[in-house]
């Protein structure tokens, strides 16, 4: 539902990174990391991305999406596990007090150009 707003955020970050780079280079792809708990639909995000980059310095770029699983850490037994079901229950001890280690990411990782302009973690 909020893919349009998130896509605008991605383009803001990518556009700012590109603007810092002179001379101007063409961008072949923008890599993003999206946690599954964010509820972002990757196909919907791609749809907006392709639409919004038209006639911008990012035109022609591809959106590369790395989906990050929801990982939980059980407070009771310290088990780490990937959460696939809607409930965040520990699969080892059944405890429901679970801290989240990942799954809420919304990050621009890198822009791929002839040379990299915004790279690394």
């Amino acid at each position, binding site marked *: 539902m*909020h893919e349009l707003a998130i896509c605008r955020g991605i383009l803001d970050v990518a556009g700012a990174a590109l603007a810092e780079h002179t001379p101007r280079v063409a961008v072949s792809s923008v890599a993003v990391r999206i946690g599954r708990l964010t509820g972002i639909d990757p196909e919907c995000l791609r749809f907006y991305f392709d639409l919004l980059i038209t006639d911008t310095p990012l035109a022609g770029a591809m959106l590369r999406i790395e989906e990050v699983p929801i990982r939980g850490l059980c407070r009771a037994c310290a088990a780490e596990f990937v959460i696939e079901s809607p409930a965040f229950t520990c699969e080892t001890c059944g405890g429901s007090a679970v801290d989240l280690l990942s799954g809420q990411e919304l990050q621009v990782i890198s822009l791929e150009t002839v040379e990299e302009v915004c790279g690394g973690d």
Partner: protein
Amino acid sequence: MRNVLDANDLIAAQNRRDFDAGGCCVINLMSAPGGGKTTLLERTIAGVRGRLRVGVIEGDVQGRLDADRLALLGVPVAQINTDPHFGGECHLDARMVRSALADFPLDGLDLVLIENVGNLVCPAQFSVGEDRKVMVSSVAEGDDKPLKYPLLFRVSNFLILNKIDLLGHVDFDPERFRANVARVNADLPVIELSAMTGAGCMQWIDWLLSEVERRRSRCHSHENGF
């Protein structure tokens, strides 16, 4: 690596500084459309009258229906319409709230209640500079919602189960609801009330008073250099 919402969070921090300077406790109130946020606000404003100075920031896609309702209660109300000013967005973000602050009398207020656009998905993602995120879920929506919209239940600090006057008329089991809440956020406090009848609302008012007090003592500690 940069966070996609850095720009939003930067503006949220600016809002936060303004709220702090005004000494306001700020609550971001979120629910599905028709969850009862506006009725709860009416009940809340009446409930804290004479004890807290309250202001409301109303978020809606269109229109001033809610703002006009609340203005009748004699409190400052700012209306944000996401359409046409903010692309018809389905949530409030920090920039939209910031746009409402220019003419808003923060200095004279203890509590600012921000009514987000009715939606269980998008508001979860956008901080607006609030102290606390409060979610309203109503019995008419069903007891399975925590498992369907886990992020909002996960990021909220306080949960109100509203419309308990409808229990018995709808298929809703409060115990199953609480169990489902615990399965996505074991730390989330839950209270039950009916904004329509007023049943259970004292608990909510008490929580708000304690939050305002907690905020005051924090500011006081800062002033004393702790």
